[in-house]
């Protein structure tokens, strides 16, 4: 028999077939239905925006890695996913430079400055969005293109804005009427009430995506297809979305109504805005979410609580991005204080 020196390595000598590129590209694939939906609903402009965001993310990643003399790893798909998710978080009619600058910021200051994949403490795509929102709020809050087959707010009114935007405005009116009776014209009050009740009945539009909003967030149906795939592949942990959506539903039901406790409409709040996108695809970003089972529960619930606070009393109609970013900050603490019990440590 041949006499040679064999290669050695440490155990285990097998591995399952998962790899980071495989995970990332399949996540990208699971986001494809929503992307196709975005192009269908909002037109070719959406495809262009998505392309620019992704291309800029990949180019930035490659450029920085080259500058640092590190191996270029854009083929692993993580920059692609970041660009994609950033694009999904943009309104349809942003100028072309918005996705480019947003992705560059997300990758450069959200990810590469910490050493690249795996080291970033906060969700790069959401940082990109929050950066854009703080830098050019006017571009980021204009929703004018109605989706094909629907209206911007999902009800038959002209007043621009996404369902959550409209809800916030209407609730502001009702609040104003409450604190200063007699000052708000009765016609405005009844209009606001009509809007709210119509919004609350627009489940169908919200579910299929025939409402205004950011590119990738409108169709709950298409997002759920991708989410189901990820759950099946076990790439995402159910604890985070369940904790997240569950707490949003509970809290909006409890505090979201104008007629006292437990008069809110949880289903509307779950379907509207970017909650489904955020809960299944962004809060679950493994790099920036806790690693321990208990930590994941706390993380999900924390996201839900902050989202509801922002939606109900905050300065924005939508709170998903900020809630995830804020909870990202707690991840090292959560990981530290929710370590699983080591085998044999419980029973002494």
């Amino acid at each position: 028999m041949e006499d040679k020196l064999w290669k050695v390595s440490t155990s285990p000598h097998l591995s399952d077939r998962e790899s980071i590129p495989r995970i990332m590209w399949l996540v990208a694939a699971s986001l494809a239905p929503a992307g196709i939906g975005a192009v269908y609903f909002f037109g070719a402009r959406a495809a262009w925006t998505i392309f620019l965001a992704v291309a800029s993310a990949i180019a930035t990643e490659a450029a920085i890695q080259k500058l640092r003399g590190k191996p270029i790893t854009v083929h692993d798909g993580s920059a692609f996913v970041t660009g994609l998710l950033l694009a999904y978080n943009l309104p349809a009619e942003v100028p072309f430079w918005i996705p480019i600058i947003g992705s560059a910021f997300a990758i450069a200051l959200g990810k590469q400055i910490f050493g690249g994949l795996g080291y970033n403490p906060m969700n790069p795509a959401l940082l990109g969005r929050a950066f854009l929102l703080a830098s050019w709020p006017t571009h980021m809050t204009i929703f004018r293109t109605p989706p094909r087959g629907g209206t911007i707010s999902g009800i038959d009114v002209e007043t621009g804005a996404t369902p959550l935007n409209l809800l916030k405005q209407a609730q502001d009116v009702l609040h104003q009427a409450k604190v200063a009776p007699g000052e708000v014209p009765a016609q405005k009050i009844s209009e606001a009430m009509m809007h709210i009740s119509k919004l609350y009945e627009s489940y169908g539009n919200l579910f299929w995506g025939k409402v205004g909003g950011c590119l990738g967030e409108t169709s709950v149906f298409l997002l759920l297809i991708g989410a189901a795939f990820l759950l099946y592949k076990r790439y995402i942990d159910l604890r985070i979305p369940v904790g997240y959506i569950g707490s949003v539903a509970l809290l909006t039901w409890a505090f979201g109504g104008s007629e006292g406790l437990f008069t809110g409409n949880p289903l509307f709040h779950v379907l509207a805005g970017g909650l489904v996108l955020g809960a299944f695809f962004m809060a679950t970003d493994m790099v920036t979410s806790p690693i321990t089972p208990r930590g994941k529960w706390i993380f999900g619930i924390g996201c839900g609580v902050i989202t509801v606070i922002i939606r109900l009393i905050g300065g924005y109609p939508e709170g998903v991005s900020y809630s995830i970013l804020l909870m990202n900050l707690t991840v090292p603490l959560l990981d530290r204080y929710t370590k699983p019990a080591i085998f044999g440590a419980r029973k002494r």
Partner: protein
Amino acid sequence: MELKTLLIISVSAIFINNFIFSRFLGLCPYIGVSKALDSAVGMGMAVIFVMTLASSVAWVVDHFLLEPTTSNLFYHLLRLKTPPDLVFLKTIAFILVIASLVQFVEMVIQKTSPALYKALGIYLPLITTNCAILGVTLLNLDMGLNFIGSVVQGFTSGLGFTLALVLMASIRERLELADVPRPMRGIPIAFIMAGLMAIAFLGFSGLKIR
């Protein structure tokens, strides 16, 4: 003060107008003492303590010694015709009173509770002459808060500072293990992180309690 007002003061001091992310006060200890979680917690506790203390004594000093009102002690003691306006001495008065009081408290803690001294004491001298402490007293004055309001604002500002400090320290501990580009290691990356955290805290802007 109305409970709701106090709640608004608290939420504002902790989240909306956080000392670090929005008011830019106490940045040097924030950057300097956020390398390790343990010391961050100790520093945070010390800051909460000193801010509360400083807010209360500064209010007392201002109200009874500096303001030109009828509660001014000089007015009574020296039997002046009109209450004297000594507000221009606020900076010097506050800093001296705070510094000596903290020194006194430090001595008391050292004598009575060595454990507490070990946890807090080493941070006390670091922060007596720090802008976050003096800053909160000046803010209280600017905002015209009464005694309770000042104490609550002092306490919750300290809480907000501690929140920022502890989050930062836990993240920096994790960044120790990260492949941060060499020139960015240490203070630069801490600033970047603070910037990103401030972006996240923008989420609280515009919060309205009603």
